């Protein structure tokens, strides 16, 4: 749960990008689907007819805070409603989010943190006090010609306690600094984009809930085995939710769950236009906020104080 950066407090901050592609948010489709679901529960393989506005969907966006000497990145907007790829338009991407310098050291810190913070070391060996018995002196101190011993659970005894063994369970939780987490996201998105592993689609609406549809689509478009679909909200369209449910390597994720580990785990990252908008809004907000220290202080200190 710590992989995500929660932006809910300042969500939809005063960025000017949101109004340009707000109409493409898939939430309305999802809600109407839910209503349909309540009335008639027909889960069948009927091919629905998708409706879309006039093409091209998007030709340009006003991007704030574009630095000097940086080109605005551009990407094709693809579709998901046919197996064959259709170019629906071009979308401008912010160079600080999708064209950032790949700080692979920061990326490594992020991946290491994501693996470690949830890892609990359960290794434990009992010491001489925790072994059973051993309270009685095994034989008298003098007169037997044997070595002096006071307990059969002494560390030098066979079946004795461990002198300096692992004292588990130990937590490895720590919090990576906030702006390293932000930089990890921008680095990973930029690397995915530079390697052509980042695809942008209009919506996640697909005509059928058959799992083989998405696999055929990924095979046809050379997307590799594993694909991560990201939308702006966690209320996903019904067909893609059913289609990805039984397939382990096709996964859905809302924007608030975006993290470096998952992006690297999947060969292809598929973002909807609404997800692109939201990711840019939130990351740009933290890169240009007037109050940078509030999130930085959020988890440091209070969590680590008790453990040290």
């Amino acid at each position, binding site marked *: 749960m710590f992989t995500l950066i929660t932006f809910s407090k300042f969500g939809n901050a005063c960025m000017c990008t949101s109004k340009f592609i707000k109409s493409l948010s898939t939430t309305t489709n999802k809600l109407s689907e839910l209503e349909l679901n309540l009335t008639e529960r027909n889960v069948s393989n009927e091919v629905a007819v998708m409706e879309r506005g006039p093409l091209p969907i998007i030709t340009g966006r006003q991007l704030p805070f574009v630095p000097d000497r940086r080109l605005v990145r551009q990407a094709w907007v693809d579709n998901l409603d046919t197996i064959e790829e259709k170019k629906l338009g071009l979308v401008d991407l912010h160079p600080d989010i999708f064209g950032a310098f790949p700080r692979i050291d920061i990326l490594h810190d992020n991946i290491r943190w994501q693996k470690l913070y949830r890892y609990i070391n359960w290794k434990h060996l009992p010491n001489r006090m925790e072994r059973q018995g051993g309270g009685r002196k095994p034989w008298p101190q003098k007169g037997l010609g044997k070595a002096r011993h006071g307990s059969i659970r002494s560390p030098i005894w066979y079946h004795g306690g461990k002198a300096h063994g692992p004292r588990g369970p130990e937590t490895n939780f720590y919090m990576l600094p906030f702006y390293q987490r932000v930089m990890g996201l921008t680095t990973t998105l930029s690397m995915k984009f530079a390697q052509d592993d980042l695809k942008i689609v209009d919506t996640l609406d697909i005509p059928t809930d058959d799992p083989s549809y998405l696999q055929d689509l990924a095979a046809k478009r050379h997307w590799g085995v594993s694909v991560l679909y990201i939308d702006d909200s966690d209320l996903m369209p019904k067909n893609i939710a059913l289609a990805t449910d039984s397939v382990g390597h096709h996964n859905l994720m809302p924007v608030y769950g975006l993290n470096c580990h998952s992006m690297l785990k999947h060969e292809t990252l598929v973002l909807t236009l609404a997800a692109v908008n939201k990711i840019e809004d939130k990351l740009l907000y933290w890169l240009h906020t007037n*109050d940078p220290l509030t999130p930085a202080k959020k988890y440091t200190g209070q969590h680590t104080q008790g453990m040290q």
Partner: protein
Amino acid sequence: MNSLSLLRSSSRVLLGSFRNAGAESIIAPQVVSRRHKGYYKSSVEGPAEQYTEVEKSYVEWKFVEKLLPPKLVPETPSDPGVVYPSGWKTPNPEEYSKLPYYIRRTKNGMLPVYYRSFNRGMFQTTRVRYVEGNVWILEKELGQYLKKNFPKQPIITHANEVGRYVQVRGDHEPMIKQWLLDKGF
């Protein structure tokens, strides 16, 4: 309000009786000090004539908004090479565009040159961060410039391409900043 005042009066009575417990025959006026200093000690509410009526108005809210700090740092002015009365200078692309490296200003419009001393001042370093382009040429030119100005000092530079910074040992922050400003960054 009523319960609070009741509580106060009862505690006053108790205090007075405790003080006079040893000398019952002496009838002394109970002087209770009223100090309306703290929040809890002060009376909650004055008489009704003291206050005026409250009216909600959103007309003047725009003047409050002027006082609120903006959520985002505004974009820096883009006029090239202008020196403001504060001494702050905007970057000039005409000057730096020929160079093989580029140093981006921070979001606050400052040059990313940072001085750091550690180990109780034992070590001092100055770091130029957010270098784009060729880090090695910047390191070389910066070293030559500092060596020219400080011929008797050892100038030890270090460049990190992955971390995008050039580091110099010693406290050279104002010198490096001026040098970068002269180059148009």
